[in-house]
C-alpha cells in the first residue's frame, strides 16, 4: 500500500516532511549549489567581460564545432534510435535480448576508453583509417572521428526513451491501421510517429545535452587542436589548464545553460500539449493523470 499523498503541507507527517527535506537538500548540495556558485563566478567581473570572453575567436570556433557535432549526432542517433526501438520491440529474432543488453554498453564504458577504441579502429595506423585517410577522408583527429565519438556515447539514449512507449502502447493501433489498408510507411508516419513523438523529443534532448557535455572521448579522438578540433568542452579544459579560469567559467555557464534550458523548455511544452495522449486506459482509470515518459532502466 502506498502512503496516501497529503492534500496540503499541513497534513504531511513528520517522516514524510523529513524525507522530502532530505531529498531536496541532497539535490541542492549536489546540483543546485555548484550551479549557482558557477554562475556567480562567471558574472563576477561583470556582464561586459562575460560577453567579451564568449565572443573571442577561439571560444566562438569551439562553440561552432560543438554545434556541428551535436547536430550531426542528434540527427543520426534519433533516426537510429527510432529504427532500433521498432526492431527491438516489434520484431522477434534470435539474439534480441542480447542486443538489448549490449545497447547499454556505451554507458558502461568510460568515454575515454571509447575514444581510445575509435583510435584503434580508425586511427591513421589502422587499416580502415589509413585507407580512408589516403582517400582524403581522415577520421580520427578530424570532425568525422569526433562525430563518431559523440554517436557512441549517446547511442542508447533515444532507444531507451522510445522503446518503452512502443512497448506500452502495444502493436494494436498499428495492426488496426493495417486492417484499414495502410501500408508500412503510412502506418509509421500517421500512427507510430505521433505516438512516440514525446519519446523522440525527450530522447533527442538528452542526446543534445550529453553531446554538448562530452569530453573524455573527444579529448582522445580530437587531438585537441585549438581552432580546429577543439570543442566547447575541450576549450573549457584548455582554459583551466592555461590558468585562465574566466574563459572556462563563461563557456561552462553557456553550455550548462543551454542544456538545462532545453530540458526545462521541453517539460513546459509537454505539459501544455495534449495530456490525454500518454495515459494508457488502465493508468487513466487508476490515477486520472498523465504518465510521464522517462528512459527505462535496464531490465
Amino acid at each position, binding site marked *: 500500500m502506498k502512503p496516501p499523498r497529503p492534500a496540503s503541507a499541513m497534513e504531511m507527517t513528520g517522516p514524510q516532511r523529513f524525507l522530502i527535506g532530505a531529498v531536496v537538500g541532497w539535490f541542492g548540495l549536489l546540483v543546485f549549489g555548484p550551479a549557482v556558485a558557477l554562475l556567480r563566478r562567471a558574472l563576477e567581473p561583470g556582464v561586459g567581460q562575460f560577453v567579451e570572453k564568449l565572443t573571442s575567436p577561439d571560444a566562438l570556433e569551439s562553440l561552432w564545432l560543438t554545434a556541428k557535432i551535436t547536430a550531426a549526432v542528434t540527427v543520426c542517433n534519433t533516426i537510429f534510435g527510432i529504427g532500433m526501438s521498432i526492431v527491438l520491440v516489434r520484431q522477434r529474432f534470435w539474439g534480441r535480448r542480447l542486443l538489448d543488453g549490449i545497447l547499454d554498453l556505451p554507458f558502461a564504458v568510460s568515454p575515454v576508453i571509447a575514444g581510445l577504441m575509435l583510435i584503434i579502429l580508425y586511427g591513421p595506423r589502422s587499416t580502415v583509417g589509413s585507407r580512408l585517410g589516403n582517400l582524403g577522408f581522415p577520421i580520427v583527429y578530424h570532425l568525422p572521428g569526433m562525430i563518431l565519438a559523440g554517436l557512441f556515447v549517446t547511442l542508447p539514449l533515444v532507444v531507451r526513451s522510445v522503446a518503452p512507449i512502443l512497448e506500452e502502447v*502495444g502493436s*494494436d*493501433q498499428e*495492426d*488496426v*491501421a*493495417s*486492417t*484499414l*489498408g*495502410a*501500408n508500412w510507411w*503510412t502506418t509509421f508516419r*500517421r*500512427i507510430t510517429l*505521433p*505516438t512516440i513523438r514525446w519519446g523522440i523529443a525527450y530522447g533527442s534532448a538528452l542526446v543534445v545535452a550529453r553531446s554538448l557535455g562530452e569530453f573524455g572521448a573527444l579529448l582522445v579522438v580530437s587531438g585537441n587542436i585549438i581552432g580546429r578540433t577543439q570543442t566547447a568542452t575541450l576549450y573549457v579544459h584548455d582554459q583551466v589548464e592555461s590558468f585562465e579560469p574566466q574563459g572556462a567559467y563563461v563557456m561552462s555557464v553557456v553550455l550548462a545553460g543551454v542544456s538545462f534550458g532545453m530540458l526545462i523548455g521541453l517539460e513546459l511544452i509537454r505539459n501544455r500539449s*495534449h495530456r*490525454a*495522449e500518454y*495515459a494508457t*486506459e488502465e493508468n*487513466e482509470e487508476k490515477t486520472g493523470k498523465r504518465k510521464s515518459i522517462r528512459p527505462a532502466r535496464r531490465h
Partner: protein
Amino acid sequence: MDIVVRNLSKRFGNFQAIDNVSFSVPGGQLVALLGPSGSGKSTILRTIAGLENPDSGTIELVGEDATNLPTQRRGIGFVFQHFALFRHMTVRQNVAFGLEIQKLPKAEIRERVDELLALVQLTAFADRYPLQLSGGQRQRVALARALAPKPRVLLLDEPFGALDSKVREELRIWLRRLHDESHVTSLFVTHDQQEAFEVCDQVVVLNKGRIEQAGPPQELYENPASPFVTEFLGQVNILRPETILGMDLDDERPLPVPIPGSNEGTIYVRPHDLEICKSRGDFPGWPALIRRLTPLGWLARVELTLPDGTSVHVQITQAISREMGLEAGQEVYVRPKDIKVFDHTTEDTGAVNYVI
C-alpha cells in the same frame, strides 16, 4: 461461404495454438468462436486477418484465396478488445482513417463518416478524443471505424471483454441489431458462452486449438458432442457412474437408463433438469441433504450433497423454493428429468440423452 478456413495450424515454440482447424462462415451470418483462454480462438481470428502467419492451411475470403495476401488487401474490418483507437486523433479522424487510405474525395469521406457516426449514435462526440469517451463509446467508435471502408468481413476479438457488465449487455443487443441491419459477415471471438448465444447465429466451440463442435447455439446446448462442450456451455452437474449405481442398488426405483461401469462413463445433469421433492413418489429419486440455499433474484440455487458425498446443485425458481419452504439442513429427494450419458467404451463421442 464468406470465410473458409481449411486445415489451419499454428504453433508458437512448443505450444500448438491451432491444430488442424477447418470451418466456414456463411455469408451474412454472425458466428462465434467460443472457447476458454488458450483455446486458440484469438490466434485463428488474427490469422484470418493476416496479423499472424499460419504454419499450414488456407484461408479463403469471399471465394478468393487470401492465405498469402497481406492484411491491407484482405478487405477485413477488425475490432480489438482494448479498442485500439488512435489516441492522437479525434473520433471523426479515427473513423475517416480507412477512407483516407482509399483516397476517397473529402466530401464523400465526410458524408460516410457522418453516416457511420449516426449509426453508432456518436454524432455529438465527433470532435472528441478517445480518452474523453467511456469504454462503451470507444468500442462503438472502433466499430464505426472498422465498418467505414465497407469490409467484406468483420472480425471481432472479444470486443466487450474490457467493458462493465451492464455496458456489455447493452452493446451485445446493439451489435446484434447492427448486424441485422448491415448483414456484414462477422466472426466474433469470446470466452463468454452467454454472449455467444445471445449474439450469434452459429457457434464454433474450441478447446486446445481444436474444434469440439460447431452449430446453432441451442443445438450445442441440448446435444453436446463431448464432455468438454457439455461442461463449457452452461452449468452442469458431473456425476460418476458409481454414485448413480450405488443409489439405484439401494432402492426398487432405479433410473431406467443404462449406466456404464465406473471409469467408463460420465453422467451430466443440468441444474434446471433436477427437481426437488420432499418425499419419494413412484419415480427414481436420490436422497440428498440441502447444504446451502442461495436466492438469486427470481431463481434460487440449491446446493445438496448425495449419500456418497457428491455435490449437486439444482436451479429452481424462487417461487417454488418459497412454496416448498426449503431450508439448509433439510433432507429431500432430487429427481432427475433429463440426463446425458457419455459412454467412453463406445466409439461414439456424443452423449446419449435420456428424458425421464
